[in-house]
């Protein structure tokens, strides 16, 4: 009883001392948040009542209202920001007594153990936040109940969200306490908190910028695992929320465990490790450290060095950017930053201007290391760019086009989340095939031999071979690739290089034929894809007509897999797809969530085409894009600009000399069946263009002469052709089209003469 009342009295004393912070927390979480929630719901309800109950619009608005309500009770960004804010407030205020001699005299002389005091203060901060947040959430749920917005899954959401939010608060609270224990006054603790919150980001950002600026780097520093809890939380928040929205609400245990696994365990581990460090620092902290800048004088120079180096590198980079890539400015700015930073830090440490002369060792060390690091990047002393591993050292290799964007792999079939394809391939390929390893090394070496060009323009001029596929607006033939070398000894190295398939055709061909590459890149090979087949819908389209495949899907899938084995660099460089297969899967009740993967059909895909034909689906481009009788008229247009460097119409200069001609659209229409037939043989549907792979094949299209409109005849209208556009293939524009455009220009010229 005595113990209990004694604890209560100490607890009350602590609450009294921290009363204003607890009150602030209660006002924010228990009054403001529920009030905003209530006002938002009232607004939504006003909106909702404009529609009759049960109508589609009413239901849609009701769903919107529910979504809006969920932003107050589940995985909200505002909640996280408030958690971090109160972690800072409680952390700084809870242990601020360490910074006052008067308070230290009292607290250190009374018979209360340090450990008990620490636990009491620590727990009180967590308790205050937890209670305030819990009450606030319950009030929000009360608002939800009042408006009839609650669903059974929200109970799980409540506990999940509350647990994660509390862990986020604790992890940040520990980080703040680390700064509090290291510092000796509130100002420095606040600065320290700021530094701890941004330090990792600053280091990663600097490395990323330096790597991007000075070497050819594949940008992986800002990705992956982050130690700073708020940043790591930010990184997983969106995916967790999507995961919850897509499958968590349906009660998927896997999704819930994923959320707990990825986020909660990290936050818990972080809290435990940093908490132990904080407690140790609290124990060894000297009483007389109150008022000092840093409570542990021995770490002052270490901290200075750790702050000065990134500061110098940051300012150096700024100097480099402002001066337009001047090495002198890079080093001069870094030098000035070290001197300035040293002065500021010493001023903060000692609060005495004369102190700038102190700790010269730290100053000189920081200066030397900063300059060394900058030079390492600037002059690539580490040989980052020139590094190509020796073939015998590479055990496995993964390779992907940077920002590879294809319709071949897009989704995590479990969670239906979209994914970065290059990331996926690099993680899952891991080929041990010596031919593939040699091919990747050859691609990397070809770039080295070409002098490491930075873009395709430089590459094409630096290389004797003129590329056939380079033209603005068309798909590009060169692309940045990222290789992931798994070396003997367990080391993994990432490198980025530009690849031109016309320079290293054999190497690229070997990669496109590699089984691991294909399995990583084409989702159609996944077992899960095959499992989804029964519920899938398969649609074929040739760019103009969309038809659902109604035959045996299993048989069709096997046939397509056999045909697809031929899909390699050779095929895609020499052939255009004649159609596309869309595989639809995922929840069907909501069209927005339906997922689709698309794969091309080529003329040589005989088994697939035979099954399509057997299902009554016309396929192949042998007879042109459309039957001529389905089209009544085709209109084309051409933007004529007398000052343009290239003129497709080749109008003689004498014809336009001394005439004031403005750039103008020339239009020509064709309704004769023979002309229509010829045009249909020369164009290619834009929808099929999406199947042409950037960076692998350089198909060229003539964008200057545009097919403005395709008018369908009565028979064509009955077939309900798609209205997506078509584009002329380069060099295939019929002469009569160009003649017609010239005539149109002639008329324009005559008209302009008449006006003059």
């Amino acid at each position, binding site marked *: 009883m005595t113990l209990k009342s004694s604890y209560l009295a100490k607890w009350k004393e602590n609450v*009294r001392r921290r009363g204003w912070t607890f009150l602030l927390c209660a006002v924010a979480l228990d009054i403001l948040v529920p009030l905003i929630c209530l006002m938002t719901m009232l607004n939504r309800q006003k909106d909702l009542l404009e529609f009759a109950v049960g109508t589609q619009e009413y239901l849609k608005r009701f769903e919107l209202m529910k979504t809006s309500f969920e932003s107050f009770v589940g995985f909200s960004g505002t909640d996280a920001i408030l958690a971090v804010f109160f972690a800072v407030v409680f952390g700084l205020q809870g242990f601020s007594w360490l910074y*006052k001699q*008067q308070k230290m005299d009292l607290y250190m002389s*009374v*018979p209360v*153990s*340090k450990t008990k005091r620490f636990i009491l203060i620590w727990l009180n901060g967590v308790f205050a936040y937890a209670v305030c947040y819990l009450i606030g959430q319950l009030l929000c749920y009360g608002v939800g109940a009042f408006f009839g917005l609650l669903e059974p899954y929200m109970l799980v959401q409540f506990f999940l969200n509350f647990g994660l939010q509390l862990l986020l608060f604790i992890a940040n609270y520990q980080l703040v306490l680390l700064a509090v224990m290291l510092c000796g006054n509130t100002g420095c603790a606040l600065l320290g908190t700021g530094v701890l919150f941004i330090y990792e980001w600053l280091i990663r950002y600097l490395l990323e910028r330096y790597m991007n600026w000075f070497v050819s780097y594949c940008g992986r520093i800002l990705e992956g695992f982050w130690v700073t809890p708020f940043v790591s939380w930010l990184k997983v928040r969106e995916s967790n929320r999507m995961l919850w929205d897509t499958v968590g609400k349906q009660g998927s245990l896997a999704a819930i465990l994923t959320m707990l696994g990825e986020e909660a365990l990290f936050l818990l581990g972080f809290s435990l490790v940093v908490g132990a460090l904080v407690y140790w620092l609290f124990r060894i902290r*000297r*009483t007389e450290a109150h008022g000092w800048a840093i409570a542990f004088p021995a770490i002052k120079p270490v901290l200075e060095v750790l702050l000065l180096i990134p500061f110098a590198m940051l300012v150096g980079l700024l100097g480099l950017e402002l001066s337009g890539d001047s090495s002198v400015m890079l080093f001069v700015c870094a030098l000035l930053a070290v001197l300035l930073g040293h002065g500021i830090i010493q001023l903060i440490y000692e609060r005495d201007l004369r102190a700038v002369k102190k700790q010269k060792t730290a100053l000189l060390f920081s200066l030397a290391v900063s300059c060394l690091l900058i030079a390492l990047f600037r002059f690539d002393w580490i040989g980052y760019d020139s590094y190509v591993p020796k073939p015998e050292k590479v055990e496995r290799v993964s390779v992907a086009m940077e920002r590879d964007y294809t319709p071949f792999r897009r989704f995590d079939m479990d969670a239906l989340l979209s994914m970065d394809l290059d990331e996926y391939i690099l993680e899952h390929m891991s080929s041990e095939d010596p031919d593939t390893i040699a091919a990747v090394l050859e691609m990397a070496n070809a770039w080295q031999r070409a002098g490491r060009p930075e873009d395709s323009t430089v590459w094409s001029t630096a290389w004797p071979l003129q590329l056939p596929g380079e033209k603005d607006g068309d798909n590009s033939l060169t692309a940045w690739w990222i290789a992931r070398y798994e070396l003997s000894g367990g080391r993994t190295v990432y490198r980025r290089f530009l690849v031109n398939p016309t320079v290293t055709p054999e190497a690229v061909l070997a990669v496109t034929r590699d089984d691991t590459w294909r399995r990583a890149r084409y989702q159609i090979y996944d077992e899960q894809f095959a499992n989804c087949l029964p519920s899938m819908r398969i649609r074929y389209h040739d760019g103009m007509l969309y038809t659902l495949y109604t035959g045996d899907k299993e048989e069709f899938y096997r046939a397509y897999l056999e045909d697809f084995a031929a899909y390699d660099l050779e095929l895609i460089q020499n052939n255009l797809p004649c159609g596309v297969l869309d595989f639809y899967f995922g929840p069907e009740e909501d069209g927005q969530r339906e997922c689709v993967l698309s794969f091309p059909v080529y003329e040589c895909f005989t088994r697939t085409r035979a099954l399509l034909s057997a299902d009554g689906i016309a396929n192949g481009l042998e007879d042109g894009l459309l039957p001529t009788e389905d089209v009544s008229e085709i209109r084309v247009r051409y933007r004529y600009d007398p000052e343009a460097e290239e003129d497709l119409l080749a109008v003689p200069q004498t014809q336009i000399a001394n005439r004031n001609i403005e750039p103008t659209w020339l239009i020509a229409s064709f309704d004769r069946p023979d002309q229509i037939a010829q045009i249909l043989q020369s164009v290619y549907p834009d929808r099929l263009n999406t199947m042409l792979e950037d960076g692998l094949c350089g198909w060229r299209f003539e964008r200057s002469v545009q097919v403005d409109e395709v008018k369908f005849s009565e028979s064509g209208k009955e077939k309900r052709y798609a209205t997506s556009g078509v584009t002329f293939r380069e060099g295939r524009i019929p002469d009569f089209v160009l003649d017609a455009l010239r005539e149109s220009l002639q008329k324009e010229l005559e008209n302009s003469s008449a006006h003059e």
Partner: protein
Amino acid sequence: MIECRDLTKSFDGTAAVRQVSVTIRENNVFGLVGTNGAGKSTTLRMIAGVLKPESGLALVDNMPVYDNMHAKARLFFIADDPYFFSNATPRDMQRYYSSVYREFDRERFYLYLDQFGLDARRKISTFSKGMKKQLAILAGLCAHTKYLLCDETFDGLDPVMRQAVKSIFAREMEERNFTPVIASHNLRELEDICDHVGLLHEGGVLLSRDLEDLKLNLQKVQCVFGSKQEEEKTLGQLNLVKTERRGSLLTLTVRGGREELTAVFAAADTLFYEVLPLSLEEIFISETEVRGYDIKKLVFG
């Protein structure tokens, strides 16, 4: 018993306390005197377990006091500028002290508050400096700890209050095992209350003695001898600490008991003599001068 063994503490490389060794016996009033910056507060804070000694030991009843709540339970420390919670009243402080000191005597606390005219419900922030010190002393007394460490606590008290506090101290010492330790730079303030004094200077202990011993063994004698020969003969029998001459009047500081000295002077041929008691101030002046220090500079600046 409180025992300091070779206590050493420095701040920013400057030694505040150097190898201080003092023993504070129980049921004594111990005065810790010294100039500003002599190390009184630092020594007291180390005894209270607030500061950790760099070397040496501060023992309370044979227990190291730093980070030891059992040792700390036996003492109450009143800092030179005592801290009270913001917006707290004496009643709030009583609640807190009751939670940390198991034997805190609430009834007596309110009785004392009443006697000293302090309102238990008034915010302490509205109290005068002297009232805050009174409150701190009362809380310290009611905590019922064996040792009460007071750092310059009597400085802000008026003479009446000081006297009242002294009588409470005396009563407490009679009633229970109570040992106040009072640090002050004012010797006059400690004179009529201390049993034992320790003098600190520049971080070290110059002297640590029982006041009664000092007073009994050191006397001031004013005298005029009948002749030069008689003067030489008598002074030769005395253990002189200090001699001052103003015309024919000699003022002597002499070691020895009062009766013994009276007998010596009664037997001598003197025109006038008087054996006077020494003030604490005078005792210190004499004792420290013997050790080669100019106490006027040390204590009175």
